[in-house]
């Protein structure tokens, strides 16, 4: 994941790029077999431990998902933690510091 958290006035802007196939389950491979669906289902963003955004996704979210939003508050040095879980049960957590 590439996370950027930056101050914008009295708010913090969070931009994330996640690395994930987000396979829809609609495609077929060269042998005609359906490529199974594989996509992030849950995302959560916390700021100093407090959840500021959570999301449920389907496979229609684009490959290598991008997400951007703002929340009120935040100071330089605060920790942003982003966590996702996909439909295979794989999970990933990354963090960034508000710059």
């Amino acid at each position, binding site marked *: 994941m590439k996370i950027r958290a930056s101050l914008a006035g009295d708010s913090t802007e969070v931009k994330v790029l996640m690395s994930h196939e987000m396979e829809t389950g609609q495609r077929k491979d060269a042998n005609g077999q359906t490529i199974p669906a594989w996509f992030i289902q*849950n995302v959560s963003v916390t700021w100093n431990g407090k959840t500021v955004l959570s999301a449920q996704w389907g496979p229609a979210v684009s490959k290598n998902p991008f997400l951007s939003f703002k929340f009120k508050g935040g100071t330089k040095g605060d920790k942003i933690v982003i966590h996702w879980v996909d439909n295979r049960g794989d999970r*990933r957590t990354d963090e*960034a510091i508000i*710059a």
Partner: protein
Amino acid sequence: MDGGRRAILRSAGQATLVALAAAAGLIKPEDARAEGWNKSAFDARSLGEALKGLAAGEPAQSKDIAFVQTPEIAENGAVVPIGVASALAKTEAIAILIEKNPNTLAAVFDIAPGTEAAVFTRVKMAQTSNVYALVKADGRYYIASKEIKVTLGGCGG
């Protein structure tokens, strides 16, 4: 985005005990998540079914929901930038639905108090279609829509 790659603090993305147990057939992957995932809403194949799955009833059209930084034409349906901003008071959730996709519901965002009611992401669109932004505000549902055209690009780029 500016700044260095070096700003990433990576943690190991390891498969969890849960995933291993699931792989061993001990538990179904769907059971393994505490977070919850609205399967009936995401499996829905029409706007009506998706709204039903979201228990959104009959949302009222609202001019207080805007599509922001959302182009009217996408050069490629694999990546369509969508931004939704809600000016409705006490917005708790924003959902993006794509009428002509095989499964209508693309994403649902829960907006915590103090978080700006605006989200930007990118979705796949199978073809030119109406895109709906559903907002839950103060317990009620509102909706707005925009048509986004998906073109077939040329060979190069």
